[in-house]
């Protein structure tokens, strides 16, 4: 498609429906910023989803949803690839080489199918279950570390090369939860000694201007995570559960946000936070 039609499509307004604590939303915000694309942002209350969201994403009813020229695009990794397809001349997120693109896509699957759920499981469990989840996270991080050390991403500052790319956005927006979960649950997830390259990459990623603009302040994330975990443990009736890393509810009571969400909403947000990485 050439000429006027394409320019009109590129110029059509962008609107993003998202949630401030959703790492999937952050992926899209970051990608839009990296590409220098203006967009309108609408914050969704996940406990009380808008008619607009339900209409735009009837299949999953989730954020983020990007609206471009009146058409809705859900699913963060799909949105990111759409941004590359629709604005190929603006700072591509995917590399040019077909094999490198396949690698990036493979590891995005890994991030969302393996690493993300494992990290979520650490957050939502206690005791032995949590220990197993932590081992899973470490196994997954070890695979990424190996790829950075001697595999496909050897010698690179970012997964995308000298600059951040699709995989950086996908892995990075969510990896900040690792430090938050460590703080809230008391378990060690990203040891700088065990995963030096991953650790260094994350530090470099989080130092970028566009990333700092996108990721909420850590104390907001901490407060939010503490509240959700407190609610989860309360719901599970696991108060004071034993095992390493279990977070005794009473010690977090003072830290829980004053406007605690009702249980149903907490489960909704817990589900979003739990599968978020």
């Amino acid at each position, binding site marked *: 498609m050439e000429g006027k039609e394409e320019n009109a499509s590129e110029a059509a307004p962008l609107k993003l429906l998202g949630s401030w604590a959703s790492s999937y939303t952050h992926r899209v915000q970051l990608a839009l910023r990296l590409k220098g694309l203006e967009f309108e942002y609408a914050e969704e209350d996940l406990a009380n989803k808008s008619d607009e969201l339900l209409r735009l994403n009837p299949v999953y009813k989730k954020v983020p949803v990007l609206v471009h020229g009146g058409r809705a695009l859900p699913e963060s990794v799909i949105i990111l690839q*759409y941004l590359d397809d629709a604005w190929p001349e603006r700072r591509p997120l995917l590399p040019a080489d077909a094999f490198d693109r396949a690698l990036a*896509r493979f590891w995005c699957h890994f991030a969302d199918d393996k690493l993300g759920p494992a990290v979520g499981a650490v957050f939502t469990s206690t005791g032995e279950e949590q220990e197993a989840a932590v081992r899973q996270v470490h196994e997954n991080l070890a695979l990424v570390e190996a790829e950075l050390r001697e595999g496909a991403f050897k010698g690179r500052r970012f997964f995308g090369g000298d600059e951040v790319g699709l995989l950086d956005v996908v892995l990075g927006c969510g990896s900040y939860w690792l430090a938050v979960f460590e703080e809230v649950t008391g378990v060690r997830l990203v040891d700088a000694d065990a995963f030096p390259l991953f650790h260094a990459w994350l530090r470099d990623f989080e130092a970028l201007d566009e990333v700092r603009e996108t990721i909420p302040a850590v104390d907001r994330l901490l407060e939010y995570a503490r509240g959700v975990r407190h609610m989860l443990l309360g719901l599970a009736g696991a108060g004071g559960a034993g095992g390493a890393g279990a977070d005794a509810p009473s010690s977090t009571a003072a830290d829980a946000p004053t406007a605690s969400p009702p249980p149903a909403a907490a489960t909704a947000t817990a589900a979003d936070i739990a599968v978020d990485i």
Partner: protein
Amino acid sequence: MAEKGVKVFGMWASPMAIRVEWALRLKGVDYEYIDEDLANKSDALLRYNPVTKKVPVLVHDGKPIAESTVIVEYVDEAWKDGYPIMPADPYERAQARFWARFAEDKCNAALYPVFTTTGDTQSEVVREAQRCLKTLETALEGKKFFGGDAVGYLDLVVGWYAHWLPVVEEASGATVVTDEELPLLKAWFDRFLAIDVVRATLPDRDRLLALNKARREQLLAA
């Protein structure tokens, strides 16, 4: 010595592996097919895919790629002058990827219990599976194939239903895809199975049925 050529590590009954074969055949690409015994995976497979250790894996001039949907997109890009698999329009590409993900995440999960249950529970899960497939079916409305007039990415990703689901239905004593419940999908099954490259690669039906029957017996006995 640089490795040349295309290899596919698969398994004769794997729907994920067959997608890769269909993609390569649409592009007219010659490949060597290696059939894996999943209970006894080859050193080569484990070397090419140490991360998930699964089939399919495509090896192109010595470089391995895993994850069937990723491989299909790769095939489209690596042989970009051949048959167009992905839609050209960015929004349609997003739609195709969306429905592929939906089918893989939701429909497959909804279908599996049909295979592992009996009686009233099975009737319940059949209805659930039909609901899921009805949602997928909306992507077919007004079209011959998911890809439009010709097969495309989404047809390749969900195409396995056309051959496998009737077998699973027979093995499980259930019917999911009927003319009443899923007319568009049923009609698409016939059109898809008539495609040359599809017909040329389907696993033997009897063998597939025997495998599924045995597996179901095993699961129900457990």
